[in-house]
């Protein structure tokens, strides 16, 4: 079964600084998608960034970028120029076709605090 591991339960960063959130996953599939979701206190899950496994180029969305290492099964999120609004829970997620069922599997999440 696929698993997603976020080993750091909490991190903090100073406003305007850069922070990297780590994620590793385990799969035997060759084709899959990886996601980072953000969950602020409002509890609304918001997609931050998405990476297709067949693409070698790392995805980037404004201040958010990923370091995707397929061989190492690593998918870290870098937040540049951190803002107070970035404070939230961050979840790494994996999705692939498994026996006809596309399970979206989440890590346990990491709480990011942004200090002014």
């Amino acid at each position: 079964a696929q698993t997603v591991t976020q080993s750091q339960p909490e991190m903090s960063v100073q406003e305007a600084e850069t922070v990297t959130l780590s994620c590793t996953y385990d799969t035997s599939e060759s084709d899959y998608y990886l996601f980072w979701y953000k969950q602020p206190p409002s509890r609304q899950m918001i997609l931050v960034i998405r990476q297709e496994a067949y693409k070698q180029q790392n995805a980037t969305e404004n201040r958010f970028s990923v370091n995707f290492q397929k061989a190492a099964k690593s998918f870290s999120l870098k937040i540049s120029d951190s803002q107070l609004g970035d404070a939230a829970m961050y979840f790494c997620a994996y999705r692939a076709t498994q026996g006809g069922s596309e399970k979206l599997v989440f890590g346990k999440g990491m709480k990011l605090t942004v200090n002014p």
Partner: protein
Amino acid sequence: GAGVSQSPSNKVTEKGKDVELRCDPISGHTALYWYRQRLGQGLEFLIYFQGNSAPDKSGLPSDRFSAERTGESVSTLTIQRTQQEDSAVYLCASSPYLNTEAFFGQGTRLTVV
């Protein structure tokens, strides 16, 4: 509507009662997920619907939990004989096509007293 809608937003129920939670997915989305999120925890997969295929029920924690979806429309998650450990936020998500991101509702916070 523009997004995934869940109702009620909050539900307080007495232990032993049955509850029904509702999810309205985004129109045209074929896939629908239910997750449970206990306080301060991650998302626990419950069930997945994809079009008219048989649902993946592998995450349902006990036979007190069941879910239905008619075609590509509304889904209901039913919890029978609720227990205090059922207290959590129940999140619903829908997805339009294979291998795209899921869009989440704001969840139903269930409190069993």
